[in-house]
């Protein structure tokens, strides 16, 4: 098998099929439309279902229903559609419904520019729904990541029963690249843990665990799902201590395991005074800039490419920043994720370079920023 020549969105579709996704619904939106096309080309012949919803709210709604009926589900959109997903994302958090959401970011704010990329939804993906409880956000940097991180996304959604967002970008989703399927990392596929024996309560966790075992709606044992504040039995509760325990568990089940899915690439260089931090499409330019400075200009620079954005991989950041004088965060917006890095590395100098013009940030611009400092 030779090299594939596919774009990031097609690689996400491949990753989804590999993971056992058999239900997909989305509403057409550039730059996510060709992911809908890829799933329509793929799923029906694989025994699955791909739907075009009447709007984004319906699309994610179809997915939540199908996920509770036992299927692995995915939806895809861009900023304007993610805005419409918001209420159902908080439902997926509250109802512990596994779902993978692909956000192919485009230039905002608002309807912005449909065919230009940006990374302007980075804080929105984390904080854009009511209640403020955590979601997982993974950021691919290229076609190969699109495959691998999609498999991780399904695995995490299944393991933690939560929404997992893939933070892609028009410049990744719709840019083609070569992919060697013999070399690409293919994580083992994980399925949600099913309830095995004894009485079933839909949101009851086992002692020492934080994720309730699953049973599908439609099986012999009755299952309840609800968006309302509920106790382990899935019925509304007004008991403050039960409510508090519930939301704390939803937070803990993800945050306490964050280090186990903090994906990143670290290029550490001896004598580096600067650590470049980037994610998504900007990682490529940062990689080129770090290589040019280190190899040709005798300015060793280390590079950290973050592939898990949320929860913030705090230990990864702290370890990578040891011994450097300056951290330079580069992102395709006006300064969003840098706020997290400033929070985590509060005793170090953290600088920012970014723009949101529809153009990629170039290696040259990054080199200028590094040498200026």
């Amino acid at each position, binding site marked *: 098998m030779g*090299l594939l020549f596919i774009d990031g969105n097609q690689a996400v579709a491949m990753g989804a099929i590999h993971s056992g996704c058999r239900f997909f619904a989305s509403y057409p939106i550039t730059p996510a439309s060709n992911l809908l096309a890829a799933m329509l080309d793929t799923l029906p012949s694989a025994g699955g279902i791909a739907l075009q919803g009447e709007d984004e709210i*319906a699309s994610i709604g179809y997915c939540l229903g199908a996920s509770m009926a036992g299927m692995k589900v995915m939806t895809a959109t861009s900023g304007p559609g993610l805005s419409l997903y918001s209420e159902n994302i908080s439902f997926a958090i509250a109802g512990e419904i596994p779902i993978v959401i692909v956000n192919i970011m485009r230039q905002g704010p608002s309807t912005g520019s449909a065919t230009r990329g940006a990374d302007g939804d980075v804080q929105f993906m984390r904080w854009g729904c009511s209640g403020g409880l955590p979601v997982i956000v993974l950021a691919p940097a290229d076609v190969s990541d699109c495959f691998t991180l999609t498999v991780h996304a399904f695995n995490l959604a299944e393991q933690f029963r939560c929404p997992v967002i893939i933070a892609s970008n028009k410049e990744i989703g719709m840019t083609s690249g070569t992919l060697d399927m013999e070399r690409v990392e293919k994580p083992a596929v994980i399925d949600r843990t099913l309830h095995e024996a004894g009485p079933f309560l839909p949101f009851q966790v086992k002692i020492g665990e934080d994720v309730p075992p699953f049973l599908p709606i439609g099986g012999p044992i009755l*299952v309840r799902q609800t968006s309302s504040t509920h106790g382990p039995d899935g019925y509304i509760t007004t008991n403050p201590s039960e409510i508090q325990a519930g939301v704390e568990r939803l937070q803990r089940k993800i945050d306490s395991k964050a280090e186990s899915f903090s994906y990143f690439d670290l290029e550490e260089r001896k004598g580096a005074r600067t650590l470049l931090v980037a994610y998504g499409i900007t990682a490529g330019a940062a990689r080129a800039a770090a290589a040019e400075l280190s190899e040709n200009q005798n300015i060793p620079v280390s590079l950290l490419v973050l592939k898990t954005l949320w929860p913030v991989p705090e230990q990864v950041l702290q370890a990578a920043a040891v011994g450097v004088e300056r951290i330079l965060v580069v992102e395709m917006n006006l300064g969003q994720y840098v706020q997290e890095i400033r929070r985590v590395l509060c005793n170090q100098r953290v600088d920012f370079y970014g723009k949101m013009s529809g153009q990629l940030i170039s290696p040259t611009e990054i080199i200028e920023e590094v040498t200026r400092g």
Partner: protein
Amino acid sequence: MDSLLNPDRPPVFCPGCSHDRSVHTLDRALKEMGLKGSDVVIVSDIGCSGLFDTFFKTHAFHGLHGRALTYAAGIKLAQPHLKVIVTMGDGGLGIGGAHFLAACRRNLDLSLLVLNNFNFGMTGGQFSCTTPEQASVASSFLNLLEKPFDVCDVAACAGAPFVARFSVYRKNLPELLVEAISFEGFAVVDLWGGCPARYMKKNPLSPKEIESAIGKLQPYQGVVSTNIRREYSSYYREEAAKDTAGVDWQGIEKTFEPTVKERREVVFLGSAGQRVITGGTLLGRAAILAGMNVTQKNDYNITVMRGPSVTEVIVSPQAITYTEVGKPDVIVALSEEPVRKCWGLFQKMEKEGRVILAAGVEIPTTDAQVLEVNFKAGGIKKKERALAALSLLAQTGDPVTLEMLREAISQSFHGQRLEEALRILEKAAAIPVHE
């Protein structure tokens, strides 16, 4: 069969609420059908109708206001054996209007009970999409200004094959519900009742008055014969089964030796309709035949068949990190508008660089060699220009050869499209080029 009511959670509706009657009627219908709790899912949303799922010992899914039909569709498609019953109020119907219309058009086997009490009971008696103009409700005079909609007219118009309107006080209602739930397709039942806490205080509505109001409207008793058609879920599966091709995610085998040792950057500056992106993809596939890495980044406006179309192809034996062209090795300049947009790129080119220039397109001064081509005189149509330019580029063997290009075309196209593409290659080779 036994009642499917939940003995631990008896209905908690206000005294005199018609919903209480609806709960017991639905239970009688399910009992009559001999259904087990695990055969049924009740999907509800927000408002008083959203309490329904808790009163039954069935599967249950309670979600966001107006979105019940979307969850129900996902459940039905994943578990086709289930009897899926959706309860919504007139409030949910209004906010979820798009889903209601889509469900009517789609015809999945779902049963929708619209528990129509002409107002938003839970939030204080505001007007809904079914509140009569003359009713006195908690939204000041707003309902006076809007025409309420007829649930059944809308459903029938949107394609629902089963539409019925009944008073919740009707004696044989369980039998009528059995008919709706048994129907294989989307069934809508507009159930009229009263809300004693909010609506009926200022708008008295006796069972008799409800029956008489319904009697004045177009009757809907069930099957709408003009809308009878295939049920969506089984139809979907039948069509999907015909689709055995799937997607061919086969790689491109290496059959040529690499032609270049360093990264090459090629930009096509064209306009929509010149098949610029296809040209870039063919260039990429040709380079992959020599085992090289390729990226292709496209830039175009949202207008489909108008406006500039730019594709940037990077070919490299090494890994490609940055996907935007900085200093092009080749520019194919086919059209004015993108050339003006990318004016600076020409000035960054070195003397080894090449510009394949369509005659008549103005470009800035550049150190690169400029090959001017009169495509029009050579009989190359607009949609053939990117491929023709690619053929001229391949004649130099850098970054791909004509053999590689021909092979890439043969692997990408079939039949008439293939013949046409190969013919363009030959035609392009015959065009005189001016340096």
